[in-house]
């Protein structure tokens, strides 16, 4: 198993949640202090570099118009990390290509950073969370179709080396596509795609890409990974290796269980500070009709974990927290319950988990937990 350290680069210095309607889309940016923001950027980069020192790989993502993530242009951060790191694999999970207007630009960005990093980039393609719809003026219906159409264009741009080609599809038109530089890795950097339900697994499995799932807990994760494996077998490819599956959880390792749980309580900022009204969390067309009917009936967002206790989240495998021994056992149990997986994406910093605490969590995980996970194939 490989472990990837991830921080969503939050800007946590906000007024009480009662004082605003939404942490995303509409929160006025006068609440962002550029000086504090600069300090946070440098701190978060330092934490990624420390994770590399501890033998972990690095993951980053992007979100828009939100205090939960100060990285709306992840390729820029990826470029910084490509220069600042030496050994870590660099996973951008991901590029929201159903929302990006110009897939050729995405192909260029990823190829450029792949070359700067001498072939350490792993490229995620994601649909983007529903709150990105307004921020990127992206149509919430037909996103799946746009994502795969953009994917096809990006892959062709990466792998065409004998001069320009032209592209005129439903959503994208581009003449004389001929990217410089081409990627370092051949035929192209490894590709990851996120899936939050078994229903969207088929094209991911058919391309044999890494499927990544976020905070989906024990049962749903097992179903998603099982759907991937079943699809590979049904298409005559045999059982895929575990390196095709990735799971993201909140992870904090302390010296003791109490210390680990205290760290995890702070990480829970990530799920408790996500106040978003239904018109942004549930735009028409983003979720299935059945899911939206349930939302209308119950008045509850499909993304609410906010009321769950830490114990419940640990039981569901959404949080791994405690002493090194406890975290090891929790991950091992989760591994067995979901039929194995190959990549642990560690949300190891959020909210007010301070730098020293973050570094302690990374160090203890890297020294005391990770060596025992590496042997899990």
């Amino acid at each position, binding site marked *: 198993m490989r472990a990837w350290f991830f921080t969503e680069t939050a800007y946590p210095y906000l007024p009480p949640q009662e004082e605003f309607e939404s942490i995303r889309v509409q929160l006025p940016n006068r609440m962002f202090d550029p000086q504090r923001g600069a300090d946070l950027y440098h701190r978060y980069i330092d934490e990624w570099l420390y994770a590399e020192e501890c033998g972990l790989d690095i993951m980053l993502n992007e979100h828009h118009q939100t205090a939960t993530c100060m990285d709306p242009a992840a390729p820029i951060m990826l470029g910084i990390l490509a220069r600042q790191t030496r050994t870590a694999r660099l996973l951008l999970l991901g590029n929201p290509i159903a929302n990006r207007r110009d897939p050729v630009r995405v192909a260029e960005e990823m190829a450029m950073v792949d070359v700067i990093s001498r072939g350490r980039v792993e490229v995620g393609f994601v649909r983007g969370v529903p709150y990105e719809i307004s921020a990127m003026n992206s*149509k919430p*219906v037909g996103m799946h179709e746009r994502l795969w159409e953009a994917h096809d264009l990006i892959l062709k741009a990466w792998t065409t080396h004998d001069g320009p080609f032209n592209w005129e599809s439903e959503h994208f038109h581009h003449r004389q596509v001929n990217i410089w530089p081409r990627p370092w890795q051949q035929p192209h950097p490894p590709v990851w795609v996120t899936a939050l339900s078994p229903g969207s697994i088929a094209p991911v499995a058919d391309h044999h890409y890494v499927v990544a799932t976020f905070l989906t807990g024990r049962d749903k994760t097992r179903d998603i990974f099982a759907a991937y494996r079943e699809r590979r077998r049904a298409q005559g490819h045999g059982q895929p290796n575990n390196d095709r599956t990735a799971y993201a959880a909140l992870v904090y390792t302390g010296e003791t269980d109490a210390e680990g749980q205290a760290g995890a309580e702070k990480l829970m900022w990530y799920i408790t500070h996500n106040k978003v009204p239904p*018109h942004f969390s549930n735009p*028409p067309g983003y979720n299935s*009709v059945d899911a939206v*009917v349930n939302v209308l*009936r119950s008045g509850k967002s499909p993304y609410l974990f906010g009321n769950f206790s830490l114990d419940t989240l640990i039981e569901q495998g959404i949080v791994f927290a405690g002493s090194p021994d406890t975290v090891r056992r929790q991950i091992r149990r989760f591994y067995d319950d979901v039929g194995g997986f190959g990549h642990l994406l560690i949300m190891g910093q959020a909210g007010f988990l301070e730098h020293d605490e973050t570094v302690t969590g990374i160090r203890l995980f890297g020294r005391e937990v990770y060596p025992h996970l590496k042997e899990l194939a």
Partner: protein
Amino acid sequence: MRDLPVDGGMLRVRGVELACRQVGHGPPLLVLHGGSGPTPGASYLAALAAHFTIILPTHPGFYGSPHHGRIRSVDDLAYLYLDLIDDYGLDGLTVMGFSMGGWLALEMATKTCARLERLLLVDAVGVKFADRETRQFPDIFAQAQDAVARLMFHDPARMTPDFAALSEDELAAFVTNREALIHYVWEPYLHNPKLLARLHRVKVPVTCIWGDSDGLATPNYGRQLAAALPDARFELIRQAGHAPQLEQPQAFVAAVLAACGGQPARVEP
């Protein structure tokens, strides 16, 4: 007019399976629904069916009707319905469009008025007069349902569905219709930037029928639209919002009949 070959609720138009109803007797009236979908059981339609042969299609995607890969915009819908009226020879046709359906009627008429008698635009969207930093129509996808209901209705408490009381199928229809609406109107939002410059091509008389409490397509916008058309009148319906046909069906039917040369309307200008 002769009956349309509607089979199992479906009409074929150049390879597109179109959900469609035909009711009533008299000259043909094509009714183009707005973003909430068609309302075949509404009292205004029953009243108008005594005067017209009403053709009530469901735009592909609404109420779970089949999408067609070729029909992706209001412009595509305009060609679909022009094909329908050509292929089935609907001459002397009155086209009545609600909201997005009014926009659609304008798209059709700016292409050709060859078979058209008149247009009735009811709280129609589709034309942009405002500057680049002013929305012509509030973004209904960026506000809560109750706020949207206040924009849409004169009496939102009476007109808003109680989601808890709706059946599974009714809720699913509501959700499906919102998806279908976004399919057609997301960007540019509820309008075609080129339509204003094409309005001179509408060679038939137009009556703009408007709810005076409409907060989505305001009466002021409706008056601007009427003024931008070569031959248009503007009729206001009191105590109605974006859907006067539902909030004030009697006054609405009177206004339609008056516009079509029937009984004088009991509505004030």
